[in-house]
């Protein structure tokens, strides 16, 4: 296709020959980029979903005891003797940056699939309502929870970046109650667990991972596993949530705020 100068689709192209060139090249041979982007979208989603499981298992150590949570925290800070000594909280900062990178990467790629305008949004919604079809509805759930995480997940990550040295049984609980962030955690819990489990199920279908002899039967089984996982992690998450809120309420008094559990025990935070 050739454009006369004044027919070029937008002004920048008229000035910048290179921009146009790459567009025209696409008419000769399709770019491999969409393939790569699809792959990266899936890989980043997979990494995030697995990370979120490990994350919740770690955080839920509070259900065992305050000491257990302190131990896990120090271990992840790189302490060589987690029962006695703190580690290097700066490591937490690096970890947060790593997760943030994956998070942004995945969000940017996956957001391409969201309805792009009112008409698409309305069409998709009426389609979901009309079909009453499990996988379609779950995609919708994924879209909504994805948007929720885009805001609250980013906020959570930045808060952890800033408070990298204030993680522990007491200080973490303070964020739930004293700093009033409990609604954010509750939203994130449901959003992550629903979104992640559906995402992993979809990944297995999308790439045909566990097809086996009878892929249709496998799909039914995967659906059951998915629900099992969702219920397990939401249950675990709610119990963990309750534990932090309880501590947070107990500690929400002048003189107690800002005092780490380790210090109360007579150790360096």
């Amino acid at each position, binding site marked *: 296709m050739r454009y006369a100068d004044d027919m070029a689709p937008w002004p920048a192209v008229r000035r910048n020959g290179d921009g146009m060139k790459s567009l025209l090249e696409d008419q000769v041979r*399709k770019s491999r980029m969409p393939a790569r982007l699809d792959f990266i979208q899936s890989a980043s989603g997979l990494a995030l979903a697995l990370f979120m499981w490990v994350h919740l298992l770690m955080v839920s150590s509070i259900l065992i005891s305050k000491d257990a949570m302190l131990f896990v925290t120090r271990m992840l800070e790189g302490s060589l003797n987690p029962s006695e000594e703190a580690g290097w909280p700066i490591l937490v900062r690096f970890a947060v940056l790593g997760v943030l990178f994956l998070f942004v990467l995945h969000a940017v790629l996956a957001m391409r699939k969201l309805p792009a305008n009112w008409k698409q949004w309305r069409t998709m919604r009426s389609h979901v309502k009309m079909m009453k079809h499990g996988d379609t509805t779950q995609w919708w759930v994924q879209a909504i929870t994805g948007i929720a995480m885009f805001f609250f997940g980013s906020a959570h990550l930045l808060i952890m970046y800033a408070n990298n040295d204030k993680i522990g049984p007491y200080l973490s609980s303070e964020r739930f109650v004293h700093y009033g962030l409990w609604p954010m955690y509750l939203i994130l819990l449901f959003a992550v667990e629903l979104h992640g489990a559906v995402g992993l199920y979809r990944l297995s279908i999308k790439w045909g991972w566990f097809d086996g002899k009878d892929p249709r039967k496998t799909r039914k089984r995967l659906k059951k596993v998915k629900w099992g996982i969702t219920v397990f992690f939401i249950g675990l998450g709610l119990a963990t949530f309750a534990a932090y809120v309880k501590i947070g309420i107990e500690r929400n008094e002048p003189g107690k705020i800002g005092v780490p559990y380790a210090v109360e025990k007579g150790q360096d935070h």
Partner: protein
Amino acid sequence: MSEAKMNVSTTAGSGQTTGRTLKINILRFNPQEPDSKPEMVTYKVPEAPNMTIFIALNYIRENLEPSLQFDFVCRAGICGSCGMVINGRPDLACRTLTSKFFLGEITLMPLPAFELIGDLSVNTGKFMRAVSERVGSWIHDEEEKQKDLDALEERMDPDTADEIYELDRCIECGCCISACGTMRMREQFLGARGFMSVARFHADPRDKRSDEDWYEVLGDDDGVFGCMSLMGCEDTCPKDLPHQTKIAYLRRRMVDT
């Protein structure tokens, strides 16, 4: 195919009924008439034994509403003309028994994502032809023209032949297209019918197109990377084509290309 309209009397049996009266709601709209507005109209139909939606529609057209538009040809799930949305899901009217609906209330709508002809009749043919041209759904072989026409055709591995046959069973009814959320949001999307067609020619050793050639058909967000694995196609295809496995297969192939 879908534009064919016949007027065959097909009311089942000899006036036998099951005693149940069906409430059939039909979304009526004739885009040809300037005053026509989309509206739900309810018809009461005495249910006959083994009645299909298609028979019920004929009853309505013969006894209640002669202007009702809908398509059929084969009445046996072969021609693909009678696809419509039945209680929310795309399906074939001629293969859906009214006894399936316990409450006796059935809502019918034309297949979305296709050009509406009127009432329940849509132009699937136009769409299917475009898909066919886009995919190039015929054997591509540069050397074919120089081939000795008297020579015996090469033998095909029976498993390959089976696979091709399995994919050739598509009747172009359009159910997979209407059931696909991606398709409905993005008109340029190739759709599941297109993927099945690609899979069919991809499997055929007589078609000489390479994965690089197929990438030109599939390799963007209007192609296989646009599919969000919603499985509407898999769950509504009346011929049970292997959408789930074949789309995943094409995706893997295209990522490796």
